[in-house]
């Protein structure tokens, strides 16, 4: 079962696709989930998930608008996707037949 932050960040990385580093991931979470996470939180979650094998990373090219700093881009690994599936299946089973407004809309 993934934690809340892990779910948010994993989904955001999937949505961003290529070039998933701090700024776009942060933006995606802000835009879709309305959560204003700090970059520190995002990187902390990413590095924890990298240690668990849920994401993998590679260094991107340094760009001038980043002051010559390289990006580190993340992709979700197969294990990461499996974890997401498990988590969501679990949530769905737990919420099935509950009449509290949890049905997909």
């Amino acid at each position, binding site marked *: 079962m993934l934690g809340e932050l892990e779910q948010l960040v994993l989904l955001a990385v999937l949505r961003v696709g290529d070039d998933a580093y701090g700024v776009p991931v942060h933006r995606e979470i802000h835009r879709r989930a309305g959560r204003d996470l700090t*970059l520190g939180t995002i990187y902390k979650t990413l590095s924890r998930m990298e240690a668990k094998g849920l994401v993998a990373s590679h260094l991107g090219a340094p760009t001038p608008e*980043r002051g010559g700093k390289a990006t580190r881009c993340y992709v979700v690994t197969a294990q990461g996707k499996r974890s997401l599936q498990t988590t969501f299946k679990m949530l769905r089973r737990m919420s099935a037949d509950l009449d509290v407004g949890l049905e997909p809309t």
Partner: protein
Amino acid sequence: MRRLCIRLLEALLPVDLADQIVGDLVEQPDRGGLWICKETIAALWHLRRQRAKGEERTMRFITDLRIAARLLRRSPGFAAVSILTLGLAIGATTAIFSVIEPVLLRPLPYPDPGRLAFIWERDRDGSRDNVGFATIRDYASNARSIERWAAIGSWLPTLSGNGDPERVNGDRVSATYFHTLGVHPALGRDFLPDEDVPGRNQVVILSHGLWQRRFGGDSTLVGRPIAIDGNPMTVVGVMPASFDNVVSPGAEIWRVLGYTNQPWTCRTCHHLRMVVRLRAGVEMGAATAELDRIHAQLVQAYPKDYASVGSLVVPLQFEATREFRPALMALGVAVLLVLLIAVSNVVNLQLARAVRREEEFAIRTALGAGHMRLLGQLLAEGLLLSALGGVAGVAVALVTIPLLVSRLPAGLPRAGAIHLDIGALALVTALIVLLSLVMGLAPARRRRGDLGVALRSGRRLASGGHRATRAGLVVGEVALAVMLLAGAGLIAKSLLRLLSVNIGFEPTHLLSMEINATGPRYRDDQAIYANHRRVLEEVSRLPGVSAVAIANQIPLGGNVDMYGVWDADNPPTNPELVPSGDRYVVSPSYLRVMSIPILSGRAFTEADNADTAVKVALVSAALAQKLWPGQNAIGKRLTIGSPTDPPRTIIGITGNVKHRALDANVTQQWYVPEGQWRQGADNQAVVVVRTPGDPAALAASVRKVIASVDPTQPIVHVATMEQLIAASTAQRRLALVLFAAFAGAALLLAVTGIYGVLAGSVAERTREIGVRSALGATPSQIIGSILEQGGRLAVLGIVLGLIGAIGLTRYLRALLFGIAPDDPVTLVSVVLLIGAVTIAGCLIPAMRAARVDPSRALRSE
């Protein structure tokens, strides 16, 4: 801020991680600084685990800091005293410097301020006097050293329309005034030369503050008329907010002087000040010499118009701060002493701690810690302490500065420029931090060769080298405490003397306020007097009012209004050389309300009014003595101000009052009943109320009643007489409070210093003391030897302190009153106090020494 955050991230995070975050931050340049801060803090917090994998050196430093924090927490006493001492010293020094710097030291905010100066007429006794208008013109047109000049007279206009009538402080100035200072209005224009004539001078310039406060910053105001003293005057300009008015700190409105040849353009009317801009390259001395020459020619040409013998050229910067220099300088000296004490105390604490830790460091060295490692540890401890001390210092300064500003004497120029001086803060902090760091490194200085000694002997022998330094520091602290105590004692004694001075009237239960009759309805003198009568009538009916009077001025109210007076039957040859007396045009009840004694003759009665044929006057004893030495002045005839004034018969002699200040010389007064004053009624008048109860509590109702008589007259300067007296002693009070506080702190530090040295010495000498008592020394002999050790330090400190005090108190001379700077009684009391307190500080260690059990002391090794 951005750069600082990036630096922090790069310094504290591993390179790879820092690059990612910094890159992300840089990539979003339009986010604010606050966001960057938030992100930085969050990143440092969330990624603190990752930090551990970071650069080793940074990490080690952080570990050192952590250890240092733990050590401090374990010795809270040492931490608290160090941080408090550092904080107080940094804070107090910064606060006082923040006050002194803008007021005394910073160049005036005008172009080329060194060339601006005041010019005064110089009287026979070297004192200054305002310059007559005709003299100003002659100076200006004849002196080659003067490039621009301006005449300034004070002006207290009442603004009406736009809400309640309000009296404001202003100046009547020649059209050249702002040009002379080198400043320009921010809105509108400066005065024009052809406005400086009667009839065309109905133009004013407002200060930014007045414009904002009363006119809501309305930019269409320029060019429009406003009602001033009931007349329309056109606003031609508004000064910028940045205009710092040093010439008259309170003035908010300026009007063109417009003198040409009215009666008051004479040489003898001394109501104007003259400010000039000297030509570039002209020295003050050269200007004085030239003006002296011109003045001598004027005296020759108009012998009856001058009492002055020359002129004085005083730099504007100096003149503006003249009044406040003594108090501020004394504070500066005091705070320097405090800084010295604080530094010596911090050094002392560090040394004491170093001694205690030598053993620890020896063990760590033996276990293989490198020299650099130990140094790093000490550095981290020193930095942590200093950082905490610095934070405490900023807090102290932030609290102290507004407190100081609120206690500063009123009218201090450039008080608005006082705020926390970052430069001073940085400098003081750097100084103290550097010192404490250097001293804090002492334990690491021990060579490896001494290691065996240090390990074997423990703390017993290790500290010998520092003891001399610490004893020296204690001597210094005692000396500084003596100096500060002497200063505090002298100021306190002066203040007591000052407050017990006979001011000539009874100041308790008196309330005073100034009223102002302006506008077309008061063109006529009789209308003003009728207004006064109604005010007296209405106020006297108030419950709680036992008597009420009106006068043109009151003692200690800050007015200087003097007229020359002479024996009507024996007129002088040069009217300028006649004695001046404070002018008191009063309602008959005045002397009774103020409780000014009638020494002989009688007081005024209601019958002494405009209708009586015989005009009367009262004179103070000093004036009577001056005009008719050795004779009875009653029945003599007095002429006031001008030969055309009808002679007045003197009907009584009053006691002298202190008119200008408690510490001023006795001036001379004369009193004339209001109805008999024919030289123009006063628009401004002071209402004085005597009450059996609390005068301050009466203020609101008296105000209300006066407003009910005429709602257009503004009421200002509401104060009890005791408040006026307090204001008159404000500088000394401030100096006393600070000196006393500083002296107390110094005394405390000196005593703890002596205690520390002796306690350390007793602990080190336990074995020796044990041997002594085993060999038959009595407890009293042991106590005696310890006391002697402390006494030697105290005596040395006291002697040095006395020498210092005699040097220091010379700077206090301007604050002293009726007491010599080397007043023996004060110095002896200080010595006795310090002696008693230091002996008390020696007693505890001495008792401890006497209780040393010889068998245990000898066996413990």
